[in-house]
């Protein structure tokens, strides 16, 4: 029997095979084939609708947890949009068993050491005045869990000490020292004499109680955020021991439990568009505030979006949502002085504006990154993918008009940041964009 390719017949077969291979090489790729498309009768239509009415308003949440944020805000700042905001920071000291201090030791000085962070709000080019006051009552967390931007405790009206300085949050000096020499000497002597008040945690806390950092009565131009890690916010007692060469020594008393460190925020909206918010059940519709809505972390301002016309979509029967987006546009140029938050987060709100976190497919809180259009500033926006939310809401073919979406910072950051956002843009400033397939 002859092999393939041998003989006249074999050659002919071979020729056909070669011809076949040549033909394969000249074919249109299947993903480029288009002939016949005119005879397709499409049964699906993909539509985009972003003309749903979105009602926005600013809501004020009264108590924002500000404890355990490991940041101590002190200062005040005023502008015409968010009004006068001032922050005081409360903390106490950690008790530890103090060691022996030698007979020959001589007290020198004492100071609170405040370390800068990058989280500052306002204009840091002006001198700042920061006072430290001694508290007259203990810091007690509400329900033993948390302290809020509204929490407060009594302290001596007269400061222990006040320091005026030019803030250099990005400079060489990484810290600001507030001298408390007299108080330091009292504590130093107690330690040296092994006073009962420094012999146990209970007695020590009762003696010290705590401290408050305030602006005093001074008008500052910024709110500075200092590091409030227990290791980094400390009281230092300096002394020396006289020997042939004087030996310098110090005692470091760390900040107490971070759960008892919090920031008390006072803000006065009376000269802002939001003046009547408290009288109006903590909600002001954007229609009353120049079609703008306002969000700010620690003051507890959120932007609420509701969708009164989505229910009308239900009229048709055969459709599926492919994608739902919530697009939020910040007011043009409102971010020149205050950087916008890198990411915004979404909460679901009910009729009473009770908020619950929305999560994405990975179980993370639903968020949107800021997209900056640095050319025309026309397309600056946050875009949330709210497909899951819409699908859930529409699962029973009913969209509850009381259901809202609320924009804020991350749950963990709302009480630790002053970042703010003014929502405005081509009307409406917040758009719900639905991609849906009808078939």
């Amino acid at each position, binding site marked *: *029997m002859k092999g393939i390719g041998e003989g006249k*017949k074999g050659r*002919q*077969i071979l020729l*056909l095979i070669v*011809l*076949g291979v040549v*033909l*394969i090489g*000249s*074919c*249109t790729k*299947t*993903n*480029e*084939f*288009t*002939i*016949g*498309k*005119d*005879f*397709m*009768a*499409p*049964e*699906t*239509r*993909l*539509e*985009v*609708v*972003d003309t749903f009415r979105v009602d926005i308003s600013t809501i004020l949440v009264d108590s924002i947890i500000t404890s355990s944020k490991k940041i101590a805000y002190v200062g005040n700042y005023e502008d015409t949009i968010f009004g006068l905001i001032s922050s005081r920071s409360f903390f106490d000291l950690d008790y530890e068993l103090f060691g022996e201090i030698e007979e020959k030791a001589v007290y020198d000085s004492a100071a609170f050491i405040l370390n800068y962070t990058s989280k500052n709000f306002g204009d840091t080019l002006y001198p700042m005045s920061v006072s430290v006051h001694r508290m007259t009552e203990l810091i007690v967390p509400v329900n033993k869990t948390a302290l809020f931007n509204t929490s407060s405790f009594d302290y001596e009206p007269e400061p222990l000490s006040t320091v005026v300085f030019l803030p250099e949050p990005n400079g060489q000096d990484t810290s600001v020292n507030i001298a408390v020499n007299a108080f330091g000497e009292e504590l130093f002597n107690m330690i040296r004499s092994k006073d009962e008040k420094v012999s146990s945690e209970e007695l020590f806390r009762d003696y010290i109680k705590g401290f408050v950092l305030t602006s005093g009565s001074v008008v500052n131009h910024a709110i500075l955020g200092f590091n409030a890690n227990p290791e980094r916010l400390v009281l230092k007692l300096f002394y020396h021991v006289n020997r042939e060469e004087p030996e310098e020594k110090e005692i470091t008393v760390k900040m107490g439990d971070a759960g008892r460190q919090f920031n008390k925020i006072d803000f006065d909206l009376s000269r802002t568009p939001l003046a009547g918010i408290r009288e109006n059940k903590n909600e002001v519709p954007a229609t009353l505030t120049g079609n703008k809505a306002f969000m700010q972390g620690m003051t507890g301002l959120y932007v609420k979006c509701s969708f009164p016309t989505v229910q009308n979509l239900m009229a048709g029967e*055969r459709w*599926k*949502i*492919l*994608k739902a987006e919530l697009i939020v546009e910040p007011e043009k140029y409102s971010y020149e002085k205050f950087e916008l938050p890198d990411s915004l987060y979404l909460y679901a709100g009910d009729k009473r504006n009770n908020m619950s976190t929305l999560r994405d497919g990975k179980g993370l809180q639903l968020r949107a990154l800021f997209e900056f259009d640095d050319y025309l500033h026309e397309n600056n926006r946050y875009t949330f993918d709210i*497909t*899951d939310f819409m*699908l859930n809401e529409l699962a029973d073919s009913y969209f509850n008009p009381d259901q809202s979406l609320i924009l804020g910072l991350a749950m963990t950051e709302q009480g630790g940041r002053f970042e703010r956002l003014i929502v405005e843009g081509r009307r409406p400033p917040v758009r719900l964009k639905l*991609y849906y*397939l009808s*078939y």
Partner: protein
Amino acid sequence: MRRLVTPYALAFFLMILVPVTLTSQITTSPYSIFGLGILEGNSSGLSRAMGGTNIAFLSENAINYGNPASYDGLDSLLTIFEIGVFSKYSMFQTSHNNQSLLNANFRYMSMGFRIAPWLSTSFGFTPYSSVGYRINSTAFLEGTSIEYPKTYIGNGGVNRVYLGGAVSFIKNLSLGVNASYLFGDITHIEASEIYEFSLEDITYLSNFTFNYGLNYQVDVNDWKYNVGFIYSDGKKLNTRNTTTIETKYEKEVLKSRKYRYSIPRTVGAGLSVRKDFFKAGVDYEWSNWEEVDFSSTYLHTRNSNRISAGVEFPSQGLRKGSSRMILFRFGGEFRESYMVIKGVPIDYRAVSMGLGLPLKGVVSVVNATLEFGQNGTMKRDLFRENFVTLSLDLSLRDLWFRKRQYN
């Protein structure tokens, strides 16, 4: 014994395996979006070489399932197993565009032998119709000026298994019938990769159908004249449909749709003449497609007509019947197909040529066929298909019954 087992084991193995593994996607043509798809015809690769002419031919050295009466021509000692494949290169042409596709697939498989002097049989598997296309289109994202890519995909088709028999009680007159079971599914998909959705419409089809055949031979000296008739009744196919819409988030089976699929009543007649290793024939076939309605926007049906003619003759110079004899075949075919698209009838024309090459070994004959043809028109924004088809049929023959007698 070994020589006996090998080819038939292979044959049976293929008979079982091929239909199972075959997804019956044979066609790759935009024409297959309509109705049952492209009709695969009723002829083997060998017949294709003669323009598909087969109504009046008897099954002598090859099985002619086009006319069941032809089984009466099977050699009483020979068992034939055939399998055919083909490869088709199509160039689709519109008034401003040219695109081409290549596909290769299975055409048929059949087996035939004589049971008794008055009874012979054949059974096999062949595609009846096939759907295969993938067309890239675009659609507007409504409410915007954005266009997005959308793909239309179709696949599947109708397969046929048949069992046929031919009887002859009167000399030179044979009658035959093929009982066929048609089954398959046709899927049309409309999908977008970008927006992650698809609408998939699957229709499962099945039914039994019968084709009847008659062949009568007149001998005049050494010349044999045959006349053949075929008839098959129209039949509604049983359908079951599932339409599924799927998005990234949801999948829903929609209400089943009602589709009507039928196959038409068909009649055909053929004449052939034969002497030694020469034969020639003509066919005419008519199908009553007008009574079949596919409820399509673009497609209307008309009654189809097919005429074809073909000739087969042996190589010159060799002793006729020798094992080295090559058979040459030529043919032509013209079809007024059942399709009228946008009011334009779709006609088909092809010329063909082929070789029958005898071999030694398990495979006794290789039939190679080349067809060159044209389908459709470029009128009214339609498209024309120019194609070349290469078919290869392998014929395995053995003297089954004689060997058994020796055992």
